[in-house]
């Protein structure tokens, strides 16, 4: 059994805001999004679809997908970061899809016990010790980013998943002809797993690698992308890369019309 205490303390330390959804403003244009976030900490991702498509090293195996799997050791059918390939999308070759960390999250609205909640910095978390496994949030998410732990992970499976995924990430970087380097101080660098494996019967999902972000590092998918197509940052800080991209470039968000106000922006969609 995993100790609840340290987990809860960890969440408390991070300024957990339990309870209902953060009512987002009714903004659509980037100017208003940036203005609303000014001065606060609000994490978002901007994904360069052209750079992603040009990364032919990722053809067949996607580095971001497996980097995520290495660090978070997700169960077999669970892919917190997913890459959706050409035949399913009309506007890009490849679409990396993490959790959107929506500002109007349908998942947070429907949780009967408040096990999933939105933090003040925008990241939506799951409390693995309160979740009753009803899967209403999974059904409610239009993006399909929530996964369920159908069984209890075993040590063998954890080790095997981590080893396999890490080898795939390395394979991609070799094909790209680059060297994957992490910061020296980065204790959470893959393949070392910090995120605990979830027990059976609870929901899990991408949390923007919070355990890395808290220490000042970028999520695993961001670091492990050979072309740096995935950008992560604080849009409350006007000098961050993501803020500048939002300010300058045209972007789209998935399922915009569902009014979920996602925080993952896709740019460079043309051509």
């Amino acid at each position, binding site marked *: 059994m995993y100790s609840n205490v340290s987990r809860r303390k960890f969440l408390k330390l991070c300024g957990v805001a339990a309870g209902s959804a953060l009512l987002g403003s009714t903004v659509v244009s980037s100017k208003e999004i940036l203005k609303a976030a000014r001065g606060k900490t609000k994490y978002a991702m901007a994904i360069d679809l052209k750079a992603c498509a040009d990364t032919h090293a990722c053809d067949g195996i996607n580095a971001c997908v497996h980097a995520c799997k290495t660090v978070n050791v997700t169960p077999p059918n669970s892919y917190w970061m997913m890459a959706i390939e050409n035949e*399913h999308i009309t506007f890009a070759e490849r679409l990396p899809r993490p959790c959107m960390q929506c500002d109007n999250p349908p998942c947070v609205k429907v949780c*009967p016990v408040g096990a999933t909640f939105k933090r003040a910095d925008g990241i939506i978390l799951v409390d693995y010790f309160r979740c*009753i496994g009803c899967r209403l949030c999974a059904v409610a998410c239009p993006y399909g980013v929530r996964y369920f732990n159908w069984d209890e992970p075993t040590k063998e499976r954890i080790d095997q998943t981590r080893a396999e995924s890490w080898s795939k990430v390395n394979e991609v970087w070799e094909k790209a002809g680059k060297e994957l380097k992490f910061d020296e101080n980065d204790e959470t660098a893959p393949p070392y797993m910090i995120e605990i494996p979830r027990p059976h019967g609870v929901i899990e999902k991408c949390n923007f690698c919070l355990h890395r972000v808290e220490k000042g590092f970028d999520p695993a998918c961001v670091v492990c992308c050979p072309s740096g197509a995935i950008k992560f940052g604080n849009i409350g800080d006007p000098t961050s890369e993501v803020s500048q991209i939002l300010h300058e470039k045209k972007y789209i968000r998935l*399922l915009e019309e569902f009014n979920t106000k996602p925080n993952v922006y896709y740019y460079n969609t043309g051509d």
Partner: protein
Amino acid sequence: MRELELDHEKTEANMDKILVSVTRTTGGFYKFLIVSLLVLAWFGFAYYQQLSKGLVVTGLNEPMYWGLYIGTFVWFVGIAHGGIAISAAVTVLNLEQYKPVARLGELLTLICLSLSGIMITFDLGRPDRAINLVHWGRYQSPLSWDVFIIVLYFMGSLTFFYIGLRREMPDMIKKFPDNMMTGVYKFLGAGYKGTQKDKRINDKVGYYLGIALLLIMCSASGFIIPLIFALQVAQPGWFTGLLPIYFLAAALASALAAIILMAYITRWMFDWYEFISDKIIHGLAMGLRVFLFLYLYFIVCEQLVMRYAGLLPEQNVSNALFFGEFAPFWWGYLILGLILPLVILILPQTKTIKGYVIASAIVIPALWLKRMLIVLPPLSRQLVPNPIVDPVTRSGFLEPLTTYGIYSPTWVEWSLFAGTLAVGFLMFAIFAKFFPLIELDVGEVYVEPEPIAATPAAAGEVAPAAEPTGPPAQCELCEATFSNLDECCAHAEKEHGIATDSCDMACAEVEGGEAPAEAGGEMVSKCGLCDAEFASKDECCEHAEKEHAIAKDSCDMACEDM
């Protein structure tokens, strides 16, 4: 007028007939018990598998997060609604003719609500944390609303049921004074004495509770349960305002069908044909017909909008039903599960009791299939394709390329379903073994009390056979005269519809033994209220007291001298 008296003999006989489920235990009952316990043992084994290994033993996966358990949960909740509908209708809308099936209906509600609660705990990933629903419950979540309304409905139905049951405890104690259940009867009776006051209070509470339950029923199945589906923007096919009333129609259809089956089977098993008449089953079947027709209408509305101009995800779901992997189930359901019972209930040739039972027996499992057809297709067509996770990637007929989910229930799910059904049947059988399945006051028989001798001459009618040609008699209603009382009675029955037993109300003998002439001067007194003529003022006064409830002192008001 005259108070109807309880015919004690016949009532006792009827009560014994009703209680035959309690008093008679055949070999069949024990066989049923053994089979149920075997099924329960298997169910226990299957549930242990699920508890120890997790939901991986089911066919559930990404994106098919919900499957048999949720579909069956909705089905059970649907069936549970009819029970209280009947009882509440009997109490509140005064549809007294359905009283014999009221107890069966209430039992159906209680049992099916319990089964639905059991079903939903199977679906939880962490049933050990179910208490979190109470401890950390969020009022914003449709699932909390579900939990609340089902518990409320169950408690309300249980109370309503108890109010009806309590009334019969004195009779049960009298019938089984020295039984292991006598203590239970005494406890449940809680001092009910059967006095008029008790009855009045009981009925009043039942009446108001019945109204409340009718409202809850409409809100539970018609509004709150379907909201858990209707409020999901992510699932096309669920995300429609039509869903609440759609579910309500299905709920009432399945509920009425279940009551028809229960009524038919129990009356066959226990020979209750005189209590549960064909008329009751006919009435229920006509109600079933209305709800089946409404359901067909709602399906047409839903599919028409989805196919003509639905958003792409909706069209995908509709195509999945019409042409995709769900097509055999969808068309099978529509034709055999909905149109066929409707036709049976419409055509005069099939509108027989057997026809109704066949239609009901089709409707119940068909609506189970339909619930699965509601739950599964939207989940299988995710809005954002998930190619690594979703097992199938192809374009279907009229469907663009997308990824599909696949779901097939495993033996564990079927076993848990079967076990839940076994629990339901067991609960019913155990109740039937210890309590009456029909309200005991259905068996009450009332008769006219023995007639009081109104006039001295009327004493002659007590033994008509002794005097075949008795004194002449006159019909007081139409003033026709007859040579004897028997003829007058025959006339009264034929012309005025008065039963022979009550003949003395209509025919009075004429004193003097002579057939009174039409313009007989012997008619002395005339009743001003009904124009009947009498040979003496006293006779007129007797008549006035008897027929018009005028005291003898005031006889002058009624009787005039001719």
